[in-house]
């Protein structure tokens, strides 16, 4: 007769998330202590209080939140964790704020691999360090298998506004230069190609990146920034159409001057998509007086994710409903419209 094995009846070392990891008991503590807190470790998080107590040295705060739901969770150029941190950092930066603190709320599906979770939270930490922010509070919940896509992340962020300028769509002025910091459409195409398992000669990587540094550089160079906006879902066209309507002006952009990488253009041709409507995660558009366009572009080009910075157009005149006109390569002009629903791949 063999001796019965005497081991702990509570299996605490799982390789996958189980419901008990969200149950508030020892396994949840273990998940927090072994995976999440070490990744985000900082003095404020270490307080382990119900709220993060933070000192903010400013009279103007920017405060934002966003949720991240993406498939696949890991993609060329990033993952959902990097996306969640950069997305919130960028929302703050676009308000002219210096991002300081963010929260992280994880909704994890039962069965999710703990090593993947570990990889994602470490990626969040790396992105936070790069952007100069701290992850100071958070939450985690586990949902039943089949009730989520592996992992959803919600982040909120606060930042301080140190600049005297008001950076708002209403501050866009006739005569302003319209500048983008980077090439267009890379994130959306990278995700789509990976999701559909399409192989391309050269891998298209997402442009997912923090935009806090190039924006801060604009302020440091005393550029009179009128408005900033990151080009996420809906791409350049949707963003410009929205801004034109808010400020009541007509924007004119030139098709030939738009920075789109050749491999992204090829993928768009193949799938029947328009790169002007494809999502980005490291691009923003800025409006500055035409006299400062050269200085703004030169400042941006010093940053690794803004080397393609280029003026793409001009704010031409007032227009009650707002309007964006594309001057095509063929020499005609056409009005850009919001898409109706999602872009769907064409038949042939």
């Amino acid at each position, binding site marked *: 007769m063999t001796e019965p094995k005497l081991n702990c009846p509570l299996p605490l070392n799982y390789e996958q998330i189980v419901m008990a990891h969200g149950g508030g008991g020892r396994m949840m503590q273990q998940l927090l202590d072994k995976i999440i807190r070490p990744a985000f470790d900082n003095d404020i998080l270490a307080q382990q209080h119900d709220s993060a107590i933070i000192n903010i040295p400013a009279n103007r705060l920017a405060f934002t939140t966003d949720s991240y739901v993406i498939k696949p969770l890991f993609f060329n150029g990033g993952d959902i964790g990097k996306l969640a941190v950069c997305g919130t950092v960028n929302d703050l930066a676009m308000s002219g704020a210096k991002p300081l603190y963010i929260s992280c709320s994880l909704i994890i599906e039962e069965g999710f691999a703990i090593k993947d979770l570990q990889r994602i939270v470490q990626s969040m930490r790396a992105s936070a360090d790069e952007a100069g922010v701290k992850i100071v509070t958070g939450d985690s919940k586990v949902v039943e298998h089949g009730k989520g896509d592996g992992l959803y992340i919600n982040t909120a962020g606060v930042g301080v506004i140190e600049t005297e300028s008001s950076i708002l769509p209403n501050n866009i002025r006739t005569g302003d230069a319209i500048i983008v910091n980077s090439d267009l459409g890379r994130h959306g195409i990278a995700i789509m190609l990976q999701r*559909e398992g*399409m192989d391309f000669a050269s891998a298209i990587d997402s442009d997912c990146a923090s935009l806090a540094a190039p924006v801060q550089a604009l302020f440091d160079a005393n550029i009179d920034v009128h408005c900033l906006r990151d080009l996420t879902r809906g791409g350049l066209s949707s963003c410009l159409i929205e801004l034109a309507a808010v400020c009541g002006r007509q924007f004119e952009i030139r098709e030939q001057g738009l920075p789109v990488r*050749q491999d992204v*253009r*090829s993928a768009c*041709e193949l*799938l*029947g998509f328009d790169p002007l409507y494809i999502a980005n995660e490291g691009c923003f558009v800025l409006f500055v007086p035409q006299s400062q366009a050269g200085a703004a572009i030169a400042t941006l080009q010093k940053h690794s994710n803004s080397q393609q910075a280029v003026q793409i157009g001009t704010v031409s005149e007032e227009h009650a409903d707002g309007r964006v006109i594309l001057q*095509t*390569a*063929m*020499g*005609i*002009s*056409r*009005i850009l*419209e919001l898409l*109706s*629903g999602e872009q*769907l*791949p*064409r*038949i*042939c």
Partner: protein
Amino acid sequence: MKFVDEYRDPKTARKLVDAIAKLSSKPWNIMEVCGGQTHSIIKHGIDQLLPEQIRLIHGPGCPVCVTPLKYIDKALAIAAQHNVIFCSFGDMLRVPGSRQDLLGLKAQGADIRIVYSPLDALKLARRHPGREVVFFGVGFETTAPTTALAAYQARQLKLTNFSQLICHVRVPPAMEALLSSADHAVQGFLGAGHVCSIMGYHEYLPLAEQYKIPIVITGFEPVDILQGLYLCIKQLEENRHVVENQYQRIVTQAGNQPAQQLLRQVFDVVEQDWRGLGSIAASGLALKEEYSPWNAEQRYAVDAIDTVEPDACRSGEVLQGLLKPVNCPEFGTSCTPEHPLGATMVSSEGACAAYYRYRNHD
């Protein structure tokens, strides 16, 4: 981008526009057959560059637009069934059936997936042996060969959980049907380059001869289209009517022989209904008898479906080139991409959608 940028060169385009203006001594009506060409013409503003007397008529070459409503309803009925994974090209998901569209059905919980090829649907069937996978195959001779290949492979693999709802159509009989109608205004055709890359253009030779009409097989970039127009107008001015091939970098007279062989092996040529055009002899492709086990129409018995055509929709006239989208009283008012009355407002290749997207403010 090699082989694309050269065909979008503004200087070359300008030269061709000037040459067309110099050449045209009177008004000419030319139909571009393919929806991809329509889209390109409107997107790049080619029609605005042309002299006023050159009128472009948008043809029936949008695969989504010409798919009859009853097939959309059949697709919806099959996709709603328990245990079915229903696959189609992206464009088809938005087309309204009599009561709803596939995207709406998907939101209600049906397992409907966008695929880029019927072979992706075949892979799904192999990966999910406990589920029924159905592929909705629509389109012209461009997409038909891969549908045929999927049927062929399913038969070879004896794959019993895969079937196809087929509504493939052929271009030349539709062109002939248009030319046979009494009220058509077409004086020349730009032939669909992609279709001819598969089928060649030998089928067009008797058409040009019988109806005394120039047909120029044409590509999709602005310079292609302008060159196709130039060649077509030159024939009209010289009172000639032959088939010419502008798209020589892709198309040969014989076309892609293995693809044609596959089509003959898997499909029968049948009479087919076209949305807006009615029934056209020898214009459709249907699975041969030996492929019946892979024929979703037979497997799911969806013949008796009751379809309800929207009253106000004039897509049919648009598809025949009798009505310009912006002249339709419903255009942009009760018919928009968010609330389309018909397929021409839905498909990315539909003439109404192209006008709405690029010309809504004209």
